[in-house]
């Protein structure tokens, strides 16, 4: 439900970077969002498209790359899918597992003219 405030923060970063690099038109904004970040891509796109009007990013396409939820076992080093609940390492049974990706929420790059 907070995609609009995330879109506002995102646009703020894009406009700052555009000004810093002296570009007049941003054509693409590439973001990475983890599967566990509680951000709905379609809602973020909807919100971003609403607020980008009238800025140098007005024609920018928002490209969202979803980063899968992955975990690593500290006991045996195995990597595993964490999109569903994982109680123990499927390889060795250890419970000493930690998320290694899936909570990302960042602007990777922008394309501009």
């Amino acid at each position: 439900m907070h995609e609009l405030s995330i879109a506002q923060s995102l646009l703020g970063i894009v406009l700052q970077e555009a000004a810093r690099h002296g570009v007049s038109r941003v054509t693409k904004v590439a973001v990475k969002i983890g599967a566990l970040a509680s951000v709905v891509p379609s809602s973020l796109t909807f919100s971003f498209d609403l607020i980008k009007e009238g800025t140098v990013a007005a024609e920018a396409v928002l490209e969202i790359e979803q980063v899968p939820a992955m975990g690593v076992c500290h006991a045996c080093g195995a990597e595993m899918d964490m999109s569903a609940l994982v109680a123990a390492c499927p390889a060795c049974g250890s419970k000493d597992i930690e998320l290694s990706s899936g909570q990302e929420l960042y602007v990777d790059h922008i394309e501009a003219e």
Partner: protein
Amino acid sequence: MSEIEVGRNILEANQTMADRFRRQFAAQGVKVLNLISSPGAGKTSILEQTLRRLDGRLSCAVIEGDIQTDEDAQRVAACGVPAVQIQTQGACHLDGPMISEALEALDLGSLDLLIIENVGNLVCPVDFDLGEDMKVAVLSVTEGDDKPSKYPALFRAAGVLLVNKIDLLPYIDCGLERIHDTCRALNPKQKVFDISCRTGEGLKDWVAWLESWVRG
């Protein structure tokens, strides 16, 4: 056409504020909890019970986040503790600027413990760091034992889980074991207390743990 590498956290503005609060809290020697649950899980009742049982042994203050009204701040203030109400006017979570404003009304140097009661919501508050030492999740058994697996982000992030309203377990189909098992899988280090604000069950252990955590 040029590609500009950015690599910036979208929530960096909030994170920068939270990092500043965290340094400020540490410098002033105040421990901070961020209390998160669905609406109606019993956050304010837990605060009332906790503050009464602490009985002044810790110097506490509360920041209350609600979409509207200052009813919760009044309930907390009635326990003899400074309470600052934030009305978010629709926002589904507390964020850095709101906390910054609330902190102006508090004398951090005089406090041992600051509890921030977030807006009732299992999803959004988890994404916004407020500079707290620990997130405390509250789940009431009437919400159902499937909630930790349906809303894993909070239950993974919380250092403490309070399972509230356990006096109602005989009347509903909620498996306490399933809640415990799911949360153990999400966060094996989580401290769990099964409590009832109505009967007082479990509150003694929770308050004793809290007191030693604050002093530790």
